[in-house]
């Protein structure tokens, strides 16, 4: 089943590749939409059919390269299933949004389908090498998307993105090898590595392995100071690419923390938890501050991603700091971290799609060039406002559920850090309020001469249809979080137990 989910988009991509070049361009996008909707349905089936309380479900295990300890092992649990679902949802949205794409649609769709397969594969992978394969391929696919369909300086940004994240992935690989060599018999099986905790009591060696893993994941996440690839990549990427980059690809880093770094190196994680807490807090505050100073709407959103990812790091760090806390708090922190991944994916995905709509109309991301758009484009303004408030952590949206759990769960073990980090939500509030005010409120002013003939239509049906579902999901999680938390919590509890070993 999971195999079908992972490889169906890839197969679809191959089928579309051989389709004649004269096929109308919308046919490609529509088939993509079809594929992603079917994917979503399959994911729903998986979700409904996921039974084990916290353990792995829907597992498949096929020998792949047994001599190298590599297997094709997939499965989902409470940490990965929400992200799989998020991926499926985001890709549907992006597919719908892409109905307006006109440039080299065939390759565009094929690349996205490939990326979709890769993203889904990463989250279901239960083998380090399988994980790494997808981790790397996601970089490749995204590189081509940015370079091929980005804005003016896309090539430089794409290269920077590729080089930087590739560095991260190789560091990750070294860490994987470290784990592999420590296991006896040597294996890349995540389940086995998690169960056996091969590096227990291996002091410096384990520290180095964790360092490699953390470096790789931190680059991908990204955390300060490894985030500098993110703003140019986002600024230059096409809107759909940005949405996936922020919505799914960044999660690969944070997911790696909860899936690999924490359970496989529990004692080392505990020893260095304070580092992650500090890095997380710095990311939170720093990301928000830099976002506050941005003049470009898209760059601003990019920096808020740094901020949001910082909360996750804070949470996972706090979950590893054992001092004076009970399991409930740590489980809350981990649950909050996973919820934040989903929430950030939905809301930031929506924001990036909206920023794409803005660019399509005004051909600039500079907030100073716009004013009072709410008068001309009420739907656009309304959706952006909703997404912005969701993103700043307003209750009723998924972001609050995530951040509340993170703060509540982290305060006990990382008091000062959490109190500092809480300030982050005030800063993000300021960031988004300023942005909303600059772009949408006040007297009407459009780029170029005011009142010029440039058409500045409200959101088109396809754009609305792409964004609204994301916001609906965000609200659904915000109002009825149990839908999501029932899946996450059992696994989060298991994870906290694993870390406490």
């Amino acid at each position, binding site marked *: 089943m999971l195999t079908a989910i992972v490889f169906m988009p890839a197969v679809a991509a191959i089928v579309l590749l051989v389709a004649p070049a004269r096929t109308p361009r919308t046919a490609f996008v529509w088939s993509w939409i079809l594929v992603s909707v079917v994917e979503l349905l399959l994911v729903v089936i998986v979700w409904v059919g996921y039974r084990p309380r916290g353990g792995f479900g829907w597992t498949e295990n096929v020998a792949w390269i047994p001599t190298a300890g590599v297997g094709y092992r997939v499965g989902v649990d409470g940490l990965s299933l929400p992200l799989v679902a998020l991926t499926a949802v985001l890709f549907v949205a992006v597919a719908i949004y892409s109905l307006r794409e006109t440039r080299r649609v065939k390759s565009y769709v094929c690349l996205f389908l490939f990326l979709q397969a890769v993203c889904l594969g990463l989250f279901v992978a239960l083998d380090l090498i399988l994980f790494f394969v997808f981790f790397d391929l996601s970089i490749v696919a995204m590189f081509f998307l940015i370079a091929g369909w980005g804005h003016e300086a896309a090539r430089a940004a794409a290269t920077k993105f590729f080089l930087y994240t590739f560095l991260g992935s190789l560091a990750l690989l070294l860490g994987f090898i470290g784990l592999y060599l420590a296991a006896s018999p040597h294996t890349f099986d995540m389940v086995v590595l998690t169960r056996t905790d091969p590096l227990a009591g291996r002091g410096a060696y384990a520290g180095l392995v964790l360092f490699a893993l953390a470096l790789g994941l931190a680059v991908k996440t990204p955390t300060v100071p490894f985030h*500098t690839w993110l703003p140019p990549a986002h600024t230059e990427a096409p809107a759909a690419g940005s949405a996936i980059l922020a919505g799914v690809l960044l999660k690969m880093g944070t997911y790696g923390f909860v899936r690999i770094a924490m359970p496989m190196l529990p004692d080392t994680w505990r020893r260095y938890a304070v580092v992650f807490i500090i890095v997380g807090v710095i990311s939170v505050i720093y990301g928000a*501050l830099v976002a506050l*100073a941005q003049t470009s709407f898209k760059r601003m959103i990019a920096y808020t991603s740094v901020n949001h990812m910082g909360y996750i790091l804070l949470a996972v760090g706090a979950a590893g700091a054992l001092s004076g806390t009970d399991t409930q708090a740590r489980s*809350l922190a981990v*649950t909050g971290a996973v919820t934040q991944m989903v929430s950030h994916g939905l809301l930031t995905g929506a924001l990036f799609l909206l920023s794409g709509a803005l660019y399509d109309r005004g051909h600039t991301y500079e907030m100073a060039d716009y004013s009072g758009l709410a008068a001309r484009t009420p739907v656009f303004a309304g959706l952006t406002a909703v997404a912005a*408030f969701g993103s700043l952590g307003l209750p009723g949206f998924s972001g609050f559920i995530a951040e509340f759990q993170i703060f509540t769960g982290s305060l006990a073990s990382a008091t000062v850090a959490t109190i500092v980090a809480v300030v982050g939500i005030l800063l993000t509030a300021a960031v988004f309020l300023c942005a909303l005010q600059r772009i949408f409120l*006040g007297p009407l002013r459009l780029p170029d001469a005011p009142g010029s003939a440039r058409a500045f239509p409200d959101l088109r049906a396809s754009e609305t249809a792409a964004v609204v579902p994301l916001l609906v999901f965000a609200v659904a999680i915000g109002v009825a979080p149990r839908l999501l938390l029932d899946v996450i919590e059992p696994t989060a509890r298991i994870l906290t137990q694993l870390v406490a070993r």
Partner: protein
Amino acid sequence: MSHLSWLAWLLLAVPLVGGAGLTVAGRRVNSLAPILGVAAAAGTCVLAVVAAGVRPAASAPLLDGIPAVVRVDGLSAVMVVTVAAVTLAVLVFSVGEFDQDENRGRFFGLMLLFAGAMLVTVTSTGLALLLMGWEVMGATSYALIAYWWHEPRRVAAANTAFLTTRAADLGLYAAAGAALAGGVTGLDLADLPKASAPWLAVATVGIVLAAFGKSGQLPLSFWLSRAMEGPSPVSALLHSATMVAAGAYLLLRVHPLLGASGWGEPTVAWLGAVTALVMGLVAVAQTDLKQLLAASTCAQIGFIILAAGAGGVSGGTMQLVAHAATKSLLFLAAGAWLTALGTKQLPALRGAARRYPIAGVTFTVGIVSLAGLPPASLWVTKDELLAAALDRSPGLYAVGLAAAVVSAVYSVKAVWYVWQPEEANAVAGFDTERVGTREISHTMRPPLLALSLLAATLGLLAVPAVAEPLRRALGVAGEPSPHWWELALSAGLALAGSGLTWRWGARPVPVAAPVKGLLHRWLDLERAAHLLVVRPTLAMASASAAFDDRVLDRGVHAIARSSVALARMTARLDDGGVDQAVAAVAAGTRWLGQQARLLQTGQLHTYYAQAAVLFAMLALVLVVVR
């Protein structure tokens, strides 16, 4: 636990769902919006009254070990009825305030959401759900204050309001974490006093901070001044039963926590008292009616907070209810004049009461109450809570009394203007804020009348026959009631203050100009906030951004550049760079280095030389290293 849970949920769902629906529908339901909005508010009101009677409760799982529980207990019952009633009154009034070309769907929707969020806040028994309502309330207040978003200053005011209150809200986040850390796993408000040692203090500080921010207590009062940029009905709701009341409510709710913390009660009480006094003085210094009322809100809420700190929960609750009726009445009346005359400047409002007597009379009723004059409501409720203060500390009582006198002063100052005869050139002062309609629409009258009735009569709450059951319902039976001399003293002081003020009229007050200015500018609190918080933050933001662009990114680039340089060097290596280096090292002279430069021809013999030398070096290394 889940007694009549459907009722509890319905009470919250009607305003929230209705409000969300209307907000989303926006202009599309412009003509129906007032009817739908009022209907929803009326429905909520009925549900609230029923709920206050039958006391439903409901529970749902929310987070891991942290359920979402709503319960209408004593305090909540009072609050839900107050909130629902004031909302209904304000919405009915609003029907006449907005005409067809404004987005009425959005207005009524947001108002309902606002009220719904307040209902969530006051019915929730746990911190998590309370915080949700609390924050949504803040966000909707933002949207309401910025309702006329075309004008940047109103948006800026909304930003200020939201950011200030949210800054204080951070306290609640911290409190939630502290509660959990302190062992209060369900984050139940009632269990907070049981939190373990250091966390109890953190939770207390957090909650007090949040309440002070929401209630506009010193030093976070300034946002209330800016909030006056919103429509009058918004002010009426925001300053009476919701938002500012939420902070006071929270402190009344968690007064056991204040007690448990040891230092909480006196601190809160004194801060409340000081706010009541100082913000009263600020109110006196105002010349803008709505600003005056806004400052008076801070002062009046200060009394409630004093009550929460002094153990006068019942008095505080009575004050809260009475103040809600009074203040919404006053704002609505001020709003009626603003709509009609286009101004809210007191000098320009001379004769307004004579021009529109219904508004004038109801306004006066409200002022009587606000001034603490007998027999209106705030006179008794204030004495109820001051009785508790006296029980604790005479000093506190004295400050409270002083504040009461001040409230009489500013109240009468306001009413003095509107009853003056209209000046000849009165029209010149009109229409400074907006274009007035010169009429008070008929839908505005019933709310004014109803609220004035309440403002006048809610003092009955303090009649022992009512007060005792109320105290039992609040679970604070045995709180002190005022003695007859206290009532008389406060009435006398209020009367004296009022009389003096009336006689004084508009003559300048002999106070130093800087002090007057300071009071007029709300103690320059906003400027201070700007100077101390906003500007440094923005400076830090641009510094960080510059750091990000110049240093971090450059750093990465510098690494790239240096490896590029290294690459260029190695690209030439085949031409004899290594040879050159090796030669230079071997001979150690510059002259020979220049000779070696002649070899940079990329030729075979340099290959030979390099290979020979390098292998020889390798051999040497291998021979030496054993």
